[in-house]
Each structure stands twice: as C-alpha cells, then as structure tokens.
C-alpha cells in the first residue's frame, strides 16, 4: 500500500488550505516574469549571470563519496551559485499563508532550502537559482496575495497592524502600492528603488482571502471550532510531557 501523506489534521477550510500548502498542490493565480522576479528580489541585475562562490561541481573533481552519489545536487549547487534569500511577510488579516506553512511548503516540496520561521516574516535561504524557483512558485500561486503578503528583506514591521483603506498591509518602507486594480512593487526587498514598476497582480477580495487563508480567526474560521486540531495539539502535548517524565513509557 503506497503511503499517502496526511500533512495536517482538521475538518475546516483552514485545515484543508494548510494541507494544500504543505502538499504543494496549490492553484496558480498569476504570472511573474523572471526579470521582474529578479528585480524585486534585488540580488542581481535582470539578465546578468548568477554570481558563483565555487566552480561548477562537474569541474571540481569531487572526492569519491557515497552520499554525493546518492544525492543529486540542486541546479544551484551544481552551478556553484551563492546562497541568497527570499523573505515574505504575511498579514494576520487572512493572508493566504503564514510563516510556518511557508516553511513547511518549502521544506516538503523543494530541495536544498533552509527555511527560517518567525512571527512576522519567513525567510528561505538557498542557492540563488533554487531560491528563485521557490520564490516564483510562492508568488504566483494562491500562497500569496500581493496586498496581504509582501517581500521584505528588512524592516518587516506590519503583519499585525490594521489595514489601511486600500487593503495593502502596512509597510514602513512603502515598497508596494495599489495602482488601478493591481499591486505594483517599486522598491526591492530591502527598500531600494528599482528601475521599473513590477506588477504583482490583483489583490484577493476579502471573501477570497477568507476562503484561501491558512490562519484561524474568530471572524472567519475560529480555532476553537476545529476540534480535531485542538485534540491533536493536546495529544502532542501529552506525549512530549509524559515522555520527559517517564522515558520508559
């Protein structure tokens, strides 16, 4: 019998969305071109070569090693790319993803990634082209709403602040703006102005965000109503506690 990953408990839409994010089976909602992605990430000029920190692995004469034979290097590792980052901030007001679910999605579905999970932001470090593959995936799919989530390398403040009238999560550095019915980004991740405005696509409506979110909220899907998740948390808690008390059990 083939193993079917279950990913996450719960009987609500939030739990279902969490399973989707973890499985990688998310809906693509928009297109971001490679050059646009490069611009907003801000690590190199669009069209330029990937800077490298070592020659391609094929040219390095690697030592004989069973692990190296077993594990196929990622494209970025093969090419000798430097390690770069992408960092997302997701609003508490029904942003589609949350830091832990971005991390789970990255760790489960991508190779060679190093996710870091905080409360207001979530960072993934990887070889540059591997990171870009992940960033593009997350930006183009239902994991991201351009109004309720944004790329912020530094000065990330805003995930828990009230929304302004235009619905764009507060950003001290004003990296994104609403223009017409789309969100544009005119600064890169760390707030440096970029040469052109990058169209990040249409924001989700409040109803759509509520439907796609992975965060429990009392005004949408209340945490206390997802009894299976609470029961599962209690089970984890019981096991961890009693294990420390009586390891032989």
């Amino acid at each position: 019998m083939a193993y079917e990953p279950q990913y996450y408990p719960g009987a609500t839409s939030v739990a279902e969305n969490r399973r989707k994010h973890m499985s990688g089976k998310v809906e693509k909602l928009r297109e971001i071109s490679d050059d646009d992605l490069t611009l907003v990430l801000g690590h190199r000029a669009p069209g330029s070569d990937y800077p490298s920190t070592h020659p391609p692995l094929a040219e390095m004469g690697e030592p004989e090693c069973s692990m190296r034979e077993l594990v196929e290097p990622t494209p970025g590792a093969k090419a000798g790319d430097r390690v770069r980052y992408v960092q997302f901030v997701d609003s508490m007001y029904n942003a589609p993803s949350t830091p832990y679910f971005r991390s789970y999605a990255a760790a489960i579905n991508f190779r060679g990634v190093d996710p870091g999970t905080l409360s207001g932001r979530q960072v993934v470090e990887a070889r540059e082209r591997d990171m870009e593959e992940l960033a593009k995936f997350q930006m183009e799919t239902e994991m991201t709403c351009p109004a309720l989530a944004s790329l912020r390398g530094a000065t990330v403040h805003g995930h828990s602040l009230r929304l302004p009238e235009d619905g764009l999560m507060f950003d001290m550095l004003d990296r994104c703006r609403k223009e017409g019915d789309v969100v544009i980004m005119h600064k890169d991740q760390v707030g440096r102005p970029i040469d052109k405005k990058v169209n990040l696509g249409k924001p989700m409506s409040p109803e759509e965000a509520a439907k796609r979110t992975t965060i429990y909220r009392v005004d949408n899907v209340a945490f206390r109503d997802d009894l299976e998740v609470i029961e599962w948390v209690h089970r984890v808690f019981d096991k961890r506690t009693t294990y420390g008390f009586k390891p032989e059990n």
Partner: protein
Amino acid sequence: MADDRKRMFAKHMEIKYTKEHGTNKMEGGEITDMTVEYHRLGVDQNPRKLEMKKAGQELAKKRGLVGYNPMMHCGGIPLGQRALTPSFLSGTDDMVEIDDLHYVNNAAMQQMWDDIRRTVIVGMDMAHETLEKRLGIEVTPETINHYLETLNHALPGGAVVQEHMVETHPALVDDCYVKMFTGDDELADEIDKQFLIDINKEFPAEQAEQLKAAIGKSSWQAAHIPTIVSRVTDGGQTSRWMAMQVGMSFISAYSMCAGEAAVADLSYAAKHAGVIQMGEMLPARRARAPNEPGGIPFGHMADIVQTSRVDAEDPAHVALEVVGAGCMLYDQIWLGSYMSGGVGFTQYATAAYCNNILDDNLYYNVDYINDKYDGAANKGTDNKVKATLDVVKDIATESTIYGLENYEKYPTTLEDHFGGSQRATSLSAAAGSAVSIATGNGNAGLSGWYLCMYLHKEALGRLGFFGYDLQDQCGATNVLSYQSDEGLALELRGPNYPNYAMNVGHQGGYAAITSAAHAGRGDAYAVNPLVKIAFADKLLPFDFTQPRKEFARGALREFEPAGERSLIIPAK
C-alpha cells in the same frame, strides 16, 4: 462569558488609539476597527522623540561629532510611519512614552536592579556563637544594638578601629544601611526599632506566623551596600563590601583584637557560611559574579517582589507585579544588555506589563477557574484543584483561545503587541499563571505555559522568533523532569537554566508562574523566607510592593533614585 466581559484593556486602547497624542493624528475610530489611516508623520509627531531629536542636534554641535539623528533610520525614513502611541503601565492609569520604559531612560528600573544587586543577607547566629562560645563574650540585645549602630556607620564606608582612614561622603552613600530580623519575638522586642524589620508589623498575621515558623529563632541582617559602589563594581562586590565592614564592626563593637584568630571565623561566616546571595554565581561560560541577574532563581524573584504581603487576597495581582519586575530585570537588563545588546528587548518585555492585555487575560482566567472549579482561584489551600494534565489542558486551552480571540476582536491589541513574541509571552504568562493559581503547583503552571505555546503556534501558523519557538517546542519534555541539568522545581530554576539561557520574553513569565502558585495558596513566600523578609522594608528606594507603579514613576520622571553624584560634580 467571554463576549459579555468588559475588557480591562479597553480604556487604555481607546486612549492610545482613538485619541491624539502629541500630533500623531490618532483621533477617532473604534478599538475594534480593522482599518486605519497611516499618516507617516515621522518622529515630529511625538513629544519625547522631538526632545531627543533636539538633544541629538545640540550634542552634535557641542562636541563636533554627530550623534542621535532619527533621519539615519532606514536611509532617511524615520520612525513614526505609523502613529507613535504612548503606553499605560498595567494596573495603573499612568500613561508614559514608550522610550521611557527603556531602563536607560528610567531611574526606577535602574534602582530596582540596584536594590537587588546591592542586597545580601547575613546570618548573625554563627558570629554570636563564635563570640560567646569561643571568646566568652556576652551577646545581649544591647550589644546587638550597639553592633548595628556601628555597622550602620561602617557599612556605607565609615572607618572603625583604624586611624587616619579615608571615608566615603555620607551624602553619596545615603541609601546604604543594615537592618536585622528574627523569628524570635522576644529578641525582636529588645531591638531598637530603627534597626528592625518587624515581621509582625510588615506581614499579615497568617504570613508572619509562616515566616517565623520557617526561620525559627534565628537572626539575620539584611545589608544594602551603597548603590554607587554596586554600579561601579558588580554584584560580587556586595558580599565582599558587606563582609569587610561586618568584620570591622564586630571588632569595634565587641572590643576584639584586630588580629585574633576568631576574626577569621567571623569573616568566614560573613563571606561564606552565613551568606544568602540574591543570585547564584554563574558558570564560567557566562562569567558573572554572585548577585548578578542571571543567577537569580525565579523563586527569589517571586520573594523579592512584595505584593503578596499587601494584596494577599488577589493572587493574580501578585503574579502580575512579578511579571513586571521579572520582565524588566531578566529581559531588559539581563538578556537585553548583559547577554545581548541594543534596545530591542524593551519591546518584548513591556508587552507583558503594559496596557492591561495580560491582566485582562489572567483575570478572565480567574473567573473561569472560580466558576468551573468551585473557587479554586481564590487564595487558599483546601480549594485547589488537583494538578493533572487534564486540568492543565482545560485551563490553558481556554486561557489561550480567549487571549487569541481578543487579538482578533480588538485589532488595536494586535497592533499593540505587534510581534509574535510579545503575544506569546502575554498569552503563556496568563495560561501558566492561571494553572498555578488553580493548582498551587508551579510546575503545573509551567506545563500550561508550554501548552499555550503549542496552541498559539497552531492557531496562527506563527509564534515568536527562531530561538523562541525552539525552546517552547521542547520545553514540555522537561516540565516534570527533576534530573540534574534537565529539570527542577520551577522555584529553583532561573535564567541560567539550560533551556532558558537566551530566552527573551519568558523569564518574567516563569517568575510569575512561580509566584502565582504560592500566592494562590496564600503562602508567605515562594522559596526563601529570608529573601521575602529582607525586602519587606520601606526604606529601600524602590517600592517592591508595586513594581509597575514604580516603573511608571520612573517614566514620568517622578522617581528619586539613589547613588547620584551631583555632590561631587560641577553644578549645571
């Protein structure tokens, strides 16, 4: 119950977020609104930031070298792109600027730590036995009074025994003194009142009986060396300074020979055998002396704070004052400065003792417990509920979900606790303290803390920062472990406990959970009766019965600290 309840933070949120402060244009709206206008007014919207900006400009002009300049922030985008709002110290109506809750800007915070660091408790009985049994010198209440008068001259830096000595100026060390206390009521009656911490007077009768039973007829000195000495040196100096002056005072008061061998016994008693430090010495990798904050066990912090003797009927209040004191010392000073650096730790810490958000959560829990568990949150020992995992799960889950829903129903509270670590501290301190109050068991409370962290993480898909989450995911596993270097009774754990050593936002909560267990039972002390009694003293500059009020006085520039140098510097 939850929705009908008037939130304790409502008034503070209304003033912070619907009334203008300075020129921040934060006028109108409701504290339940999910949208707001951001005016991006910069630092000029806030009175304290303006004062600081002006001071920075004057400094640059005066010294010819630039200093504080808010336009250096984010390449010319200053703080204040959102409204800069003031804060209220929880449990008070005192509104303060948040900058004034950094300990550098707050003399009361500095003095709280000074008063702990410069305190040491020294037994008198060992010295008296040496005098009586070895030297045949009679010790009477009269000789003790004479000795204490001598020591109150010598401890601040007055000379005894020797000629042509340098002395400290009394006006610079006016906060230095020693008092004694004893469980022997007959002896206490004979001690000059100026020298006595009177247990019967300072504590409610029930607590006084507990304390006297705990310490028996033993006698102790609570010595506070000068603040200025403690600031120049470190916590390790406290017992050394005290022991030198105690030794000299015994020689003088009892007309001993300065070189006789018995002096070594007195010295040994004062330096080692009869000494209670407020904080234990830390291991070499942290390289701190005794009486530094990393060595202060949570039980000691619970005993240093004195709310339990002035408001014993309200265990939640007792725990909340310990949260304030603990977060300030452990987070802002210990982790924020000794172990790390910069200014960021203040934001974590103040969330737990400002704007009544934690207070509301904990008092909700008290009502919940009293309703469901037949008054188990009231002070007492016969009313406690048995500490089981089912009880922990029930109380901590209800507490956590109530607190989380407040952030969702009142977006201004979410904006106030704008970081996940702030929310995690507040929610877990409420859950843990509530379990402690209900069960009278600090480790059960700690268990509630960890469950709260799990629930919070799963509800919001986020918790705190990397290290925060790491420690809170593995902590439950050692809640019930008493193996060395893994677990301990919470009273005996402290900031240097392996899993807590870099654990910002937690240690004040742990101290509160410790204190809540004992306040819930009506205990006179958490772990050390001597520490509890030593700080039951109105002469200390910092009032340990109300730390949060004192922090407000510091922020409002109303607090009068000790150890000032104005006597010996040019007048301005």
